[in-house]
């Protein structure tokens, strides 16, 4: 297992980069939000791998907290997207641009 740590961390770095790219290039608020979730889950992967590497439970403990916090974020985030959709009939972030300069 331990000899694969490098590969797992590399995978998590790739997933994290995909998430960042998604946030920066996508236009739909929900898709951006899914990309953020991808970032958080890539962190979970890295944490579990490091936890195994160091033979230490802290990393796995943090994973549980990250999941709980991600769930709380989903609840608030989707509520915000719904309220904006009700008023504007769109979730496209490029069209939601009243506040500029």
């Amino acid at each position, binding site marked *: 297992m331990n000899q694969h740590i490098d590969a797992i*961390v590399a995978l*998590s770095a790739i997933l*994290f980069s995909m*998430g*960042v790219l998604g*946030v920066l290039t996508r236009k739909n*608020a929900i898709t*951006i*939000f899914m990309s*953020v979730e991808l*970032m*958080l889950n*890539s*962190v979970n992967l*890295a*944490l579990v*791998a*490091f936890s195994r*590497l*160091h033979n*230490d439970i*802290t*990393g796995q*403990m*943090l994973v549980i*907290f*990250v999941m709980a*916090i991600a769930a*709380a*974020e989903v609840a*608030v*985030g989707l*509520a*915000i*997207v719904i*309220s*904006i959709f009700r*008023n*504007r009939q769109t979730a496209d*972030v490029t069209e*939601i*641009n*009243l*506040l*500029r*300069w």
Partner: protein
Amino acid sequence: MPIDLNLLLRDTLSVAPVLIVLLSAIVLMMMSASKVQSKMLPWVAGSGYLISFLALTFVTVPSASAFSGMVNTGSFAVVGGIMILVLAFLHSMISANLLQKDGIYLGEFYALQAFAITGMLMMVSANDLIMVFIGIETMSIPFYAMAGLKRKDVRSNESAMKYFLIGAFAAGFLLYGIALIYGATGTTNLTRIADYLASQTPGAFFWVGIGLMLTGFFFKVSAVPFHFWAPDVYQGAPTVSSAFLATGGKMATFMTLALVSMKLFPVPSAKWAAVVAVVAALSMIIGNVTALAQTNVKRILGYSSVAHAGYLLLALLSQTTDGYQALAYYVFVYGITTFAAFAVVGYLEKDGNPVTLDSLKGLGFSHRTEGVILTIAVISLMGIPPMGGFVGKYLVFLNAYESGHLGLVILGVVTSMVSVGYYLRIILSLYTRPESTEVIANPAGAFALTGLILAAVIILVSGIYPPVFTGWITSLW
């Protein structure tokens, strides 16, 4: 392993101030759900903060750390906690009045605020990166909801969505940084990471982790180049929320950044200072220059918060106790000042129309007390004596100069002069005779006015006789 009840009790007692606020948050949530007299909500919130403040001030904690080294109690946690609770108490004095004026009849506001304060108190008492992360998220998630409190208002919606997407994005960076630091050192405990650094030279992994974590923090404190959300959010959110997002969030996040820097680098790290120096310089320049072009007062305050993030970062350069104390002083005065400014802007708003430099005209005559308080706050933000902002800037610049960052100090002084340009326009507008003499209905209520005057007194006292506050910070440190 059997649970040691005495230890559990001791640990619980040492975080009592946090638990009191958490309890009041839960009570507030229940009360707002059960439609009991909503007039009672601010009283419950305020007394919760007051009791927590008293517990923090007068109860001596049995040990310096609790929960197997996850939490630090005493000293730093007390300084950070007291400044957050003072702000929260002042905010609970004005919030009922402002919410009513904005037409927001949602008791949830108080519960959200109390949950956010729980997170802030956790952040400043953290001794572990896990605590830092959970604290920041416990603070941020209620903040997103507070920004979107006006559900029918598209600007409030937009502000909430921008805040939420950027905040979650920043949390991703912060967390990946924490994961890499954990991977490099094998621990998330700040003290143990410092021990690791003292015994071995960290590799690239560790520094990438620190870089990503700092990126997350820079997002949260709205430092350039991660600042673009701040003016939008502070402008779009209901003013009663902005008055707390822009101040409490900044206080807690900067104190946590100082805490992380203090714990991780007892020996100053040149790499850390180099990154902070670049971001500080950019924030001071871009924040102040962009603010010059603004006409919306809340937006000006948003860019001013970007600029002040730059000044505050200067205090992190030396990585000495003096530097951290200067930062604590500055961020406390800045928080109270910006709170007063936002609150007054909230009172001067009319029918939800934004307060611009034009619409401010003549309000200094029709609303004398509010006008004087806004003037005091704005002069303090400029950094002109005898206000607290001057002493804060002086302490921060002095510390940066002593640690050999003369160039940045000169940049700081020059950008402060630039900032006079836009701050002065607010005062000039206030005391210009308007074309039409319209008097705004709903001036601040007596209770809210007391809160504003208290804030103004803190600004004046911290400027005229700074030892009151510097002595308080150094004695608790």
